[in-house]
């Protein structure tokens, strides 16, 4: 029976316009689940003031 995770990854790949050969779908689904397990810690709350590291720096390049 398909799981939410199956349909999440299938939808993400379809939206991205990328094809996965049928014989590789199970392996890719497994890889996706491993990745999501690692990324789970990103769901932990952060303070409002914790802004992204990669904000633009418009003073760069100015001497």
């Amino acid at each position, binding site marked *: 029976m398909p799981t939410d995770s199956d349909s999440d990854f299938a939808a993400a790949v379809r939206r991205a316009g990328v094809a996965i050969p049928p014989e590789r779908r199970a392996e*890719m689904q497994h890889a996706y689940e491993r990745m999501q397990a690692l990324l789970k810690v990103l769901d932990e709350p952060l303070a409002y003031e914790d802004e992204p590291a990669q904000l633009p720096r418009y003073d760069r390049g100015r001497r």
Partner: protein
Amino acid sequence: MSGQGPAGPLPTIAECGRRIAAGEVSPVELTEAALARAAALNDKLCAFIEITADRARAAARRAEREIAGGRRRGPLHGVPYGLKDIYDAMGLRTTAHSRLLLDNVAAEDACTTARLEAAGMVLIGKLATHEFATGGPAWDLPFPPARNPWNTDHFTGGSSSGSGAAVAAGILPLAMGSDTGGSIRLPAAYCGTVGLKPTYGRVSRRGVVPLAYSLDTCGPLTWTVEDAALALQVLAGHDPRDPGSADVPVPDYAAALRQDSKGLRIGYARAFNQDGGVGAEQAAALDAAAQVLARLGAEIVEVKLPPNDRFQAVCRAISHSESFAIHQRDLQTRPELYARVTRERLTLGAGVTAGQYVRAQRLRRVLTAKVDALFEHCDVLIAAVIPGPAPVLEETDQRPWREPQPLSSVFNVTGQPCIAQPCGFAANGLPLSVQFVGRAFDEASVLRVGHAYEQAAAWTARRPPLATLPQ
């Protein structure tokens, strides 16, 4: 230096420079020696994608004329080097080890290439990488994967695989690499060379095929720390055409090498290493390295880094998202041109949500602040870069989900400079490695500690047993 064949490894950059200055060897002799050694060893090591012999000989003759005419440019003038094949060199192909770029001829030099050429260096060739500096060793690519000179059955580490192999084999005293999650330091560690990942923004990335914009760092692989300092002196500096380049003064790195380690406070991330799965041999070698520094007069204190899983999540969310954004169109239109492992690892980026990417960048700032705070009490950190010696090449992970590099990618997330260098050998004869990490833009302290340790430990005297390579 006879210049007649691959009798031995090329001298270090510093030694080449000294001997050229003394008239004991010429750039043409050094170039011929590098070309001969490359020709003799490349079938076994697969370090080079392309050997640029004619161009090298012309550059060597030009250097020789200039030096003979009293116009020596500096210690790198007339010394051979190589480029990971993601660096542009005008008129040469930049393939990124991929079928997608087999016809991609560079219209101009990368900023780094231009700096090395302006210093008078002689390009010997373009070096193997993992496809687009990601993927992994693969056999369905136009060029074979590089092999480890210490034992050709073993992995070089990646993705600057040819760079590690060529420097370890003594074909080149300098090879450029790039580091997004460890790709300079891992091949340096597995191949027993020095690998310097400068601070993010210290060295220009312009003209280098990107993998992940906010993590990519360019730097040198060399045989000694002194050579890394000589290379960085030329490579470092602001490039207004690289949006990530920092406008920060460049100090005299050679001066840093003349300072000893007395009085430095060095933080040892022992618990973090254990968290990263460091094996017994590597852990013992790290302990021994810390003891060497203590004997040299440094104070060793244990420090605590944030939990490893935070760094890994941040690095993978960012690197997968950014590399997918770069490759999405090619993955849509000509996916068959990628190696299977590259295609699948890049495709995983489609599964990272926008929310995860932004939260990863937010957590990155938090982690960076925590690591920066350690430097309020320490001058340099010691950490592992590999869990143990190089695995067997054929047994490297070929699955779409590669287990995170638990030790090297930490400092890609936080951006600080670090150097990987030999700290011993495993029972199977393969190198072990230690990593020294410094404050942002304080490469000088990293080089200072690395050089002091290298002089005391003397691992550089041991070279790979290339005479025993199978014919």
